[in-house]
């Protein structure tokens, strides 16, 4: 076992762990893309006040925001196979990574639907009236006037959620997914140097989050380039 704490190991572990970042980012990418689709679909019933469907969305969003992601993951992990078995589909040999992707997509979908709804509603209705007054159709108004501004409003919240979702993926190892933390756990099992592994993992997460934050900052500037730069009074 050697020394109880060996700081050289922290750097030694990095090359072993970094390749598994791909798995983590894969989970993130799939769940974000699916989450955006779910979020758009879920935002529509509430924006257009469609009865029944909007109540369903309210319950969905409330449940996702009311329960820990860990519980949601266990529910999908144990619930989806049970559900599919009713239709005689056996998924017992499916890689758990798909259950993680489903969980995070559902979770992101609820968050995104609220972000999209808030963003669209934040656009002053006077602008839509102005668009109609110059003869734009509903879809022209939505795609040329409302949506471009709404994206700008939603972007900081989406960026926050993406970073949150990246950190949430660190729990995927609990159902046996070989992502960054999953690989870390096997490394601990073989080397018994838990602290060094977790320091390495923290460094990787921290660097990725810093890169994401920088990138989002650049994008945000681009999305809001049409806005006059406000001179703050403070």
């Amino acid at each position, binding site marked *: 076992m050697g020394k109880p704490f060996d700081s050289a190991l922290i750097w030694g572990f990095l090359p072993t762990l970094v390749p598994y970042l791909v798995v983590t980012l894969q989970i993130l990418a799939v769940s974000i893309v699916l989450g955006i689709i779910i979020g758009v679909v879920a935002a529509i019933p509430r924006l257009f006040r469609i009865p029944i469907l909007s109540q369903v969305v309210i319950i969905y969003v409330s449940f996702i925001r009311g329960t820990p992601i860990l519980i949601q993951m*266990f529910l999908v992990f144990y619930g989806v196979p049970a559900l599919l078995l009713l239709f005689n589909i056996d998924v017992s040999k499916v890689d758990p990574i798909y259950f993680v992707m489903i969980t995070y997509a559902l979770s992101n979908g609820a968050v995104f639907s609220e972000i999209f709804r808030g963003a669209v509603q934040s656009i002053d209705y006077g602008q839509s009236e102005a668009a109609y007054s110059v003869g734009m159709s509903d879809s022209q108004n939505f795609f040329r006037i409302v949506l471009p501004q709404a994206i700008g409003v939603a972007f900081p919240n989406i960026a926050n959620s993406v970073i949150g979702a990246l950190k949430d993926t660190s729990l995927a190892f609990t159902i046996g997914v070989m992502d960054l933390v999953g690989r870390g756990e096997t490394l601990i099992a073989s080397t018994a140097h838990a602290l060094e592994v977790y320091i390495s993992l923290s460094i990787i997460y921290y660097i990725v989050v*810093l890169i994401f934050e920088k990138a989002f900052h650049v994008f945000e500037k681009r999305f809001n380039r049409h806005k006059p730069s406000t001179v703050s009074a403070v």
Partner: protein
Amino acid sequence: MTIDIPFIWTALNEIVKALPVTMMLTLIPLLAGFFIGLIVALIRVYEVKGLTALANGYVSFLRGTPIIMHIMLIYFGLPLLIDTFVQNVGLESRSQLIPISVFVLIALSLSAGAYLSEVIRSGITSVSKGQVEAAYSVGMNTYQVMTRIVLPQALAQSIPNFTNIFIGFLHTSSIAFIVSQKELTGAANIVASTNLKFLEAFIAAGIIYWILTILIEGLSFLTEKKVTAYTRGGVR
């Protein structure tokens, strides 16, 4: 495998016994985190020399890494630090005697501190500068301005954000089950594996968390109405 609906009720009764542990793992870190967050926020607002860089690094690192990392780093790192220190002093190492929940509480308090410092900071900056100037002009000192003018408004302003963090940490406490804490998720896991009814146990745990969250949201709504009462009824 079919879902055993009556067992959800049985599991619910069993899991709910772990509620005090979950509340402890939520409330103590929030309380400790509030004081850490307040100090860190004041350091960053007043740009205290030497400490600002430290405070920035603390907030950035803890917000940039998953909370499970904080739990693991404290869980494995702190005993090592204590042991090294104790051995240097020449005493026998006793860190094994410290209960795991202490490490979890320390880790969660540090994370809560980082998140709450941002909430408090944004609350402080939301109070307009004119009010601070007005307070100075009638002869208040910085301490009076902070405690009588800025903080009461900043805290009222921050209630929606506090609620989010409260609910967030209620949910975060579920991670403690990974280091075998018997809180709601840990209890659900035990009920699940002893009865081999996983789905039912986690449905029960989900229901408990959901009800708690709805209660907290309702409570926060009422508090917000009370605390921001001064903003209503005026010329607005």
